[in-house]
């Protein structure tokens, strides 16, 4: 009995000693170190652009239609020659997602024909006010400059595709859409 007791204590002591000399730590100290998310992670939404800065979203409202919790609100407007926002005929003038209603199911990115809305890798969703949880279009849109993050194409198995890895298979996803 006493021996078994000491055996158990020795195991705990070993773990403690290992930690003190710096081995066996399994904790990531979160605000300083962030965990790498897997490719299929469904985090905060992103609205993507083409390489020339035009938005991919054409305001078709398929995402709003498919959303099971009705978290997406979208108003479309026509593109004009003076104000060419997206690559198609129309663009989303207002695009809001209520993040408190969103259940992060990923149906929107599945439904999107243009690969415009995708689920990003960011999981830092805390806000100070309830109104802050309504994500406006500007909050989600990728910055207009070049080299803005990874291209993100919906794929039921692998979601994050970088331009380099994708080029060989599907051509250049960043390419300017020809028709406009």
């Amino acid at each position, binding site marked *: *009995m*006493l021996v*078994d007791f000491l055996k*158990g*204590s020795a195991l*705990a*002591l070993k*773990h*403690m000693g*290992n*930690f*003190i000399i710096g081995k*066996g*730590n*399994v*904790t990531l*100290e979160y605000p300083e170190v962030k965990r790498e998310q897997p490719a299929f992670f469904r985090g905060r939404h992103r609205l993507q652009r083409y390489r020339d800065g035009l938005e991919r979203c054409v305001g078709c409202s398929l995402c709003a239609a498919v959303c099971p919790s009705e978290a997406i609100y979208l108003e479309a407007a026509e593109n004009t020659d003076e104000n060419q926002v997206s690559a198609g005929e129309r663009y989303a003038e207002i695009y809001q997602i209520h993040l408190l209603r969103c259940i992060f199911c990923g149906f929107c990115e599945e439904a999107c024909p243009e690969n415009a809305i995708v689920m990003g890798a960011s999981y830092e969703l805390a806000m100070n006010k309830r109104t802050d949880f309504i994500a406006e279009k500007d909050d989600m849109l990728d910055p207009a400059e070049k080299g803005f993050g990874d291209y993100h194409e919906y794929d039921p198995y692998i979601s994050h595709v970088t331009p380099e890895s994708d080029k060989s298979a599907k051509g250049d996803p960043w390419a300017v859409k020809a028709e406009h």
Partner: protein
Amino acid sequence: MQLPFSLQPLFDFLGQFTDGPANALIIVIALIKIALIVGGLLQIIPFIILFERKIISWVQDRPGPNRAGPWGLLHGILDGVKLFFKEEITPKGVDKPLYLLAPGLTVAPAFLALCLVPVGPIIQGAHLDALVSFLRLDPSIIGPGGIISEIPLAITNPNIGILYVLAVTSIGVYGITLAGWSSNNKWSLLGGIRASAQMVSYEITLSLSIIGVVLLAGSLNLYNIIDSQAGGFWHWNVMAQPVAFLLFIIAMFAETNRLPFDLAEAEPELTGGFHTEYSSMRFALFFLGEYINMVIVSAMCVTLFLGGYHGLFPLPWEAIATWITNISPSFAGFYPWVIMASYLIGPMVIVPAKVGFFIFLFIFARATLPRLRYDQLMDLGWKRLLPIGLINLVITSGIIAIDLMVTGNGQVELATKWIIGAITLGLFLAWDLLYYSPRRKAQLEKDYRLYPKSAKKGEKPALAS
């Protein structure tokens, strides 16, 4: 060396209100000691809590609290501040007077027991004389021949010391029991009932393990008990009473309601146990009482078994002081400082180190051992520890009686202590190895295993009948 002014007029002035300057002096000395010991302990408790959280997380391979302050040093203090500012909620249907009384009844006995812990030797004789002449007090009031002839470095030093500690710690159970009863909550009530039966059961073990030490010292006075262990670690009572030492440690875990005996607040079964309905400072008082109790039983264990304020090896302080003075005449001023160091090393270094070891043991056991079931707890207390304690006591007292009859000097010899230790420890280990044989251990494992060992991985195992 002397103070530039005398303190005597101050006590003469205070003496007008207290029936003479001697009484004023007694009160002032007691107040200083209380301020130092109680105040010091209260400062340390947040850090004990932090230490606990750190040790537990290290055992579990994680860094533990490290957000507030360097190494998370402010966590304990911030916890206290948070509890202080929380809302106090009194649930409906509580027995109000008892509900309010219970937290106090947990903390007060803990503080009462604190005033007996001897943290250093008694200042008396020439050293007291030197101190008195340094403070320029009246030697007829305080001094080797005065009304106050000694200053023990403990708040008080009554003759029945260890009995006082037992009495006061046995009152501590009322806080938990009443908290459980008055909360008007069945989980609290169950916690209170468990605590009362558990504490009464383990108090017997505690007392039995103490009696052996009292026999060895021939006195109930804590200073006499410590003096009987003077002269190096081979004189300590742990050498004479190893089995009693083990019993004391087990019983002290049970008395403080710490894991593996924290059935009164078993979180998986009773939500919070007896303190479920308490919040804010009332809850903090329960916590405070638990930690002070931990420190006190640790200090008692140190006093009874580990030689109290005596170090591992005896140091001839007087000789060292004289030797330093003899090196060069310019070192002559160091003599009183060395003597002072000999008094301060107990409260500053040795006692904190030894108590700290036991605090670590408390925390380490919490990180390591699973909680006992209630019937196992009672089995352990009444069927194992009590007989072991009784047999240990019979052997100890028998050998001490033989020793006293042979030598007739009223003192237990060192060799006798070792013989007692060897015999009791040998018998205990023999019992342990024979009783818990591999066959019985296999049987026990089979009895207590919830799932049969043969269950395959990924398959839902059937409950063992």
